[in-house]
């Protein structure tokens, strides 16, 4: 299984840049996800790897072989499309067999392989049907099967789950994980659903307008977002972002208008620390799940007034007015409160994120931001 390396890859349509200076390596056998909003260029990256579109500049390597100018056939990649792209006039059997037929395998081998893949995916009963007769989930499996049967060097998956309904999506996610554990093929996966990205991947790259904002493990991206965009994009419900001012006296603290938040002296950020800075405008990020809602205010907690409560089964999302800010916090599933009722809130100080108000980049609160080597 090769690793896939991008070296300063750029893609432009006419004058419009779609991918900017992409340099990353997908490791041998890794499940790597590109996640980002629509139009950020993630599907284009897949097309470039597959050879369906040419790069404007830069090189793509499989191991040490430059594949930048090879045709799709010569690259030995398989792709699962969002629309599945099943051949509508062929049976499931013929759809699965097509890649092998094109490579002129014998009928005996074809039959054997088709049955093997069908058994792996649990679709033996569908072999004689046509795509129009299948459900969405079944079609998705046939599309997967067609990709698997060739045992390609690289799997490319373009939002393969987005056409499935919510329950099926979650179930298929775990099946994909199991398949990957078994087949260990280098996989490049693309989605706009951050929850999917977090649950499936070994490593994630968050993309915006053609460039990578941050790359790392799901936990890293979630716990230490590199900028406000990543912080907002990852995590559900969305992170609360509040404007404030960072100062030292000499311990770091943030002025949020109505309240002063002390920041713990030892940040868990993996960035190197540096000398103290003068006070500056910042954006404070705190995730709803890091805010605890108490039914009544205690002497040590802060307080806020309720705007609304949305129950969601095992938990509730409370919209609260906290000083001049409107924030959302997670509460217990049976939490109930009337509008304008006062409740207590407690913030996990260690989980507070601080971003530069101008650039949006993450600040370690006792020094300038220095990029981590190797990311």
């Amino acid at each position, binding site marked *: 299984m090769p690793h896939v390396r991008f070296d300063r890859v750029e893609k432009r349509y006419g004058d419009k840049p779609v991918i900017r200076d992409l340099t990353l390596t997908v490791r041998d056998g890794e499940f790597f996800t590109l996640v980002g909003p629509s139009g950020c260029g993630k599907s284009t990256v897949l097309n470039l790897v*597959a*050879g*369906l579109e040419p790069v404007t500049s830069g090189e793509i390597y499989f191991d040490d072989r430059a594949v930048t100018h090879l*045709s*799709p*056939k010569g690259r030995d*990649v*398989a*792709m699962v*499309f969002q*629309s599945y*792209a099943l*051949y*509508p*006039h*062929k049976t499931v059997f013929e759809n699965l067999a*097509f*890649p092998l037929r*094109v*490579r002129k395998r014998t009928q005996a081998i074809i039959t054997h392989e088709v049955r093997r893949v069908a058994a792996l995916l649990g679709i033996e009963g569908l072999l004689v049907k046509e795509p129009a007769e299948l459900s969405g989930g079944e079609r998705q499996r046939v599309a997967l099967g*067609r990709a698997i049967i*060739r045992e390609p060097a690289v799997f490319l998956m373009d939002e393969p789950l987005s056409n499935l309904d919510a329950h099926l999506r979650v179930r298929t996610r775990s099946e994909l994980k199991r398949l990957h554990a078994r087949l260990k093929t280098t996989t490049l996966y693309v989605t706009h659903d951050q929850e999917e990205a977090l649950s499936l991947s070994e490593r994630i790259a968050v993309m915006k307008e053609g460039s990578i904002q941050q790359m790392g493990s799901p936990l890293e991206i979630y716990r230490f977002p590199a900028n406000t965009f990543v912080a907002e994009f990852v995590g559900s419900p969305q992170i609360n972002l509040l404007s404030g001012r960072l100062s030292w006296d000499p311990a770091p603290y943030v002025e949020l208008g109505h309240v002063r938040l002390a920041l713990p002296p030892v940040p868990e950020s993996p960035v190197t620390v540096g000398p103290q800075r003068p006070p500056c405008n910042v954006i404070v990020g705190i995730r709803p799940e890091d805010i605890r809602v108490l039914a009544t205010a205690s002497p040590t907690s802060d307080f806020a007034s309720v705007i609304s409560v949305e129950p969601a089964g095992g938990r509730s999302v409370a919209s609260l007015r906290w000083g001049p800010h409107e924030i959302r916090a997670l509460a217990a599933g049976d939490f109930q409160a009337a509008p304008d009722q006062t409740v207590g809130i407690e913030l996990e100080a260690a989980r507070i994120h601080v971003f530069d108000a101008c650039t949006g980049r993450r600040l370690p609160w006792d020094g300038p931001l220095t990029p981590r080597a190797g990311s």
Partner: protein
Amino acid sequence: MRDQSETRTGYALLLPALGVLALLALYPILALCWLSLRHRILPFGIDEFAGLDHYAVLLQTPRFWNSLGVTLYFVGVSVALEAALGLCIALLLARNFPGAGWARALIILPWAIPTVVTAKMWEWIYHPDFGVLNYLLQATGLVSAPVNWLGTPSLAIHAAIVADVWKTTPFVVILLLAGLAMIPPDLYRASALDGASPWATFRHVTLPLLRPILLVVVLFRMIDALRAFDLLYVLTGGGPADTTETLAIYTYKILFQTLQFGYGSAIGVVMFLVVTLVSLLHFWVGRADFRRLAGRAP
């Protein structure tokens, strides 16, 4: 909310159009069948019952069988050429290259020109002495003496076929372009990734998905070609030696040159039956595709 007013309004609105059609299209068909059973020669005022006499005569007239043969030959060769050529041109024009819009607009022109103008144009091109075709052939050394395209029995029908193919291929191209546009692009990508050559992609992706509309186009063209009149009337008038006399021309001559409206109508009825037969055959061959087109499961 389906009240009576909708149904009443509906029938009222349909009436004018259906009335016109019934009067001027359906009634003549019935009149045709009626006429075919009578001896009717207009200027002499003859009008008497003839039963199936005309049909009997028809079946024994060599000229009738000749016209039937010419018609089927003309239709078969023309439509086959138009379908093949039209498919190639459509594949060519389906890509989005600079100027594609203009090319697609210009290709419509031969189809839109009046058929008689087409006929006159080609008649001039085929002219044995002053025609540009003979000039080009002689100048390039392909032939040594001027060819009488429209006057030689074995050549005339083929000259007519070329003119017909020139005129009607654009129609095929337009419809096939629309059909090609409906094929999801992901299928081409999947095929490329699966490693299929362009020819294999054409056979396994393009052609099967194009088949329904190809059948529709071929059906339309066959029906049109079966009743072709304008082109042949002007180009050859049915000659030389009746080698280009199709059923339509034969019918016209009988009707308006010999004024035998009874006999002429009988030929007309036969024409009508041939068209209907071809249509039914067509529907049967493509029944799965037509059912899919109508929105029902095949």
